[in-house]
């Protein structure tokens, strides 16, 4: 808030007292104005003031009551400093109590005759106190705005969750007579569950970026490779909406020194956003270009576009939330807010352009090109191809206390041809692991009886590294993963566990009998 008035009102009805006081204060560079009566001063309080200097004779009982009546209406942060010049001028004046004023504001009594230095010192102290009050007022306003933003955000988040949850709920109830779910409904549930997972992951990442907890694992990568992966992820969504995806890549590699996981997140979010806001029959194009000042990724669409007044705030989380309620496709701005943060972490920029509503949008990310030194030091890492080989049959133990999660994992892994056993707590799980000696164990970390960390430690002590141990946890922060690895796990998967992640792990850890 900019209104931080330090103006002092001086009320001294006798002679030239008020003018003299103002002149002395002006010499000390204190702004002061004469006020004829307490009533005048009370009117000025509405505009905000730094304090009041008043002589005792200007405060007869009725004026004091008038002042008190205004002071009690002040906001909770405000205690207008009141410096009362007491005693004299006439020796027959009786000493007065200003207790009723003291109870309502910050009162300083200065005995007359007043020494100029004493008055200035008292005024300076009063104005410092007033400054602190303004600080508190501004802080309270900021906190109120934060609370308002939080409430708005929660309302939008609730809205954002209702449509996917509604679709999942109805589709899950569409079993046929033999309790089987049609493929289209199973796909719907998977699609919306993935959407919700992405939403939660983006939210967590956004909070980690804000807390400075994201550490980039940079390596030299070809932007075309990352873009191809992102396109593969988004294509099913685009196909479903009958939106055509186009790419425009150069024939040569476009190398950047960046975290491939985060760049994938940036590109996927931009593509997902473009597809989301492009109606059936529309087009989304991703172009990659190398220029002298960086690597450019442009995602353009001929979709709903952005109103001119919204374009500047499009990367602001809450600015988008303001417009999101009522939109079924959501649009809290989590994705775009995250994109901006991740791009900035890489030292890049991101901009949005649109000619207006209905005229499509264009998002441009510019990342610094890898320097010759970086290219020399860090050989380019080829992207890991998604698992396509059918992994050979393995023995797997699932240790998970949530019945639904355990049953679904078991079902999925058995469908892939694996031999699966399961346990529902840490003690039973450890016993099963020691007796079965499976190829791989999926162990929840928050287990009753004995937690997953203790299970891993015991397994390592008794079986060494004969079993591939995978921690499955709802906590996916780097510290959680580090703790799991320290306890003896080989891998860490964040819930909800995706069967493709498990397949990838199986491919990376060959069966024991074929291991070198």
């Amino acid at each position, binding site marked *: 808030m900019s209104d931080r008035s330090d103006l002092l009102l001086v009320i001294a009805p006798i002679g030239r007292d008020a003018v003299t006081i103002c002149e002395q204060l002006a010499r000390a560079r204190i702004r002061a104005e004469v006020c004829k009566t307490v009533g005048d001063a009370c009117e000025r309080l509405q505009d905000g003031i730094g304090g009041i200097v008043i002589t005792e004779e200007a405060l007869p009982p009725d004026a004091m009551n008038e002042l008190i009546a205004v002071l009690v209406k002040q906001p909770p942060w405000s205690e207008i400093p009141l410096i009362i010049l007491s005693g004299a001028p006439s020796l027959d004046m009786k000493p007065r109590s200003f207790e009723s004023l003291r109870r309502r504001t910050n009162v300083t009594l200065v005995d007359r005759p007043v020494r100029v230095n004493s008055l200035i010192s008292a005024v300076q102290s009063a104005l410092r106190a007033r400054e602190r009050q303004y600080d508190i007022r501004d802080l309270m306003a900021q906190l109120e705005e934060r609370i308002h933003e939080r409430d708005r955000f929660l309302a939008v988040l609730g809205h954002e969750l209702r449509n996917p949850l509604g*679709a999942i709920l109805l589709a899950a109830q569409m079993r046929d007579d033999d309790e089987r779910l049609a493929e289209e409904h199973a796909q719907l549930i998977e699609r919306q569950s993935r959407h919700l997972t992405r939403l939660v992951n983006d939210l967590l990442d956004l909070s980690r970026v804000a807390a400075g907890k994201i550490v980039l694992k940079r390596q030299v990568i070809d932007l075309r490779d990352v873009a191809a992966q992102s396109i593969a992820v988004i294509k099913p969504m685009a196909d479903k909406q009958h939106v055509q995806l186009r790419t425009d890549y150069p024939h040569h590699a476009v190398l950047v020194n960046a975290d491939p996981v985060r760049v994938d997140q940036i590109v996927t979010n931009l593509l997902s956003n473009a597809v989301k806001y492009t109606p059936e029959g529309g087009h989304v194009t991703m172009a990659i270009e190398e220029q002298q000042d960086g690597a450019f990724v442009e995602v353009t669409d001929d979709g709903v576009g952005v109103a001119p007044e919204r374009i500047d705030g499009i990367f602001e989380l809450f600015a988008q939330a303001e417009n999101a309620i*009522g939109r079924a496709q959501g649009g809290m701005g989590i994705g775009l807010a995250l994109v901006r943060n991740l791009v900035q972490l890489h030292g890049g920029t991101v901009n949005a352009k649109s000619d207006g509503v209905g005229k499509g949008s264009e998002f441009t990310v510019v990342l610094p090109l890898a320097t010759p030194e970086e290219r020399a030091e860090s050989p380019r890492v080829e992207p890991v191809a998604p698992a396509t080989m059918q992994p050979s049959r393995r023995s797997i133990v699932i240790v998970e206390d949530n019945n639904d999660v355990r049953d679904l994992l078991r079902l999925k892994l058995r469908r892939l041809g694996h031999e699966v056993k399961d346990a529902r707590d840490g003690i039973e799980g450890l016993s099963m692991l020691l007796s079965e000696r499976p190829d791989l164990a999926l162990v929840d970390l928050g287990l009753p009886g004995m937690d997953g960390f203790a299970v891993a430690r015991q397994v390592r002590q008794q079986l060494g590294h004969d079993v591939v141990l995978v921690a499955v946890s709802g906590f996916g922060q780097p510290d959680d993963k580090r703790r799991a690895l320290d306890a003896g796990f080989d891998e860490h998967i964040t819930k909800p566990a995706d069967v493709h992640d498990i397949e990838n792990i199986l491919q990376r850890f060959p069966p024991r009998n074929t291991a070198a």
Partner: protein
Amino acid sequence: MSPNVLVVEEHADLRSAVVSALKREHYVCDGVRSSDEAVAMLRDHHYAAVLLAPLLPVNEDPVVRYVLAHDPAEMPTVILMADPGAPESAGNYATLVKPFNREQLIAEMAKTH
């Protein structure tokens, strides 16, 4: 004969799930993305009910305005699909609060015939 129902929902998967659930109950059902598309459908077809997820305040929604401007006897019953806060502005329309399950959907539809 089963009543005709029009589902107006922008969220593609939710629309598809609602339409599937109603067809399972032998309703003849069409699904459209927007209220403007819904009005076009209302001009050409007769529906017993419209399940509407309004993107505007209810009384500004083109479907509601269309229904209000025509003979109530000829027009479908409007059921809103909305967030919990929405019924405050839903007037007298029946409301299915998202996320709703199959039983709630069927129970609300049963009241229309």
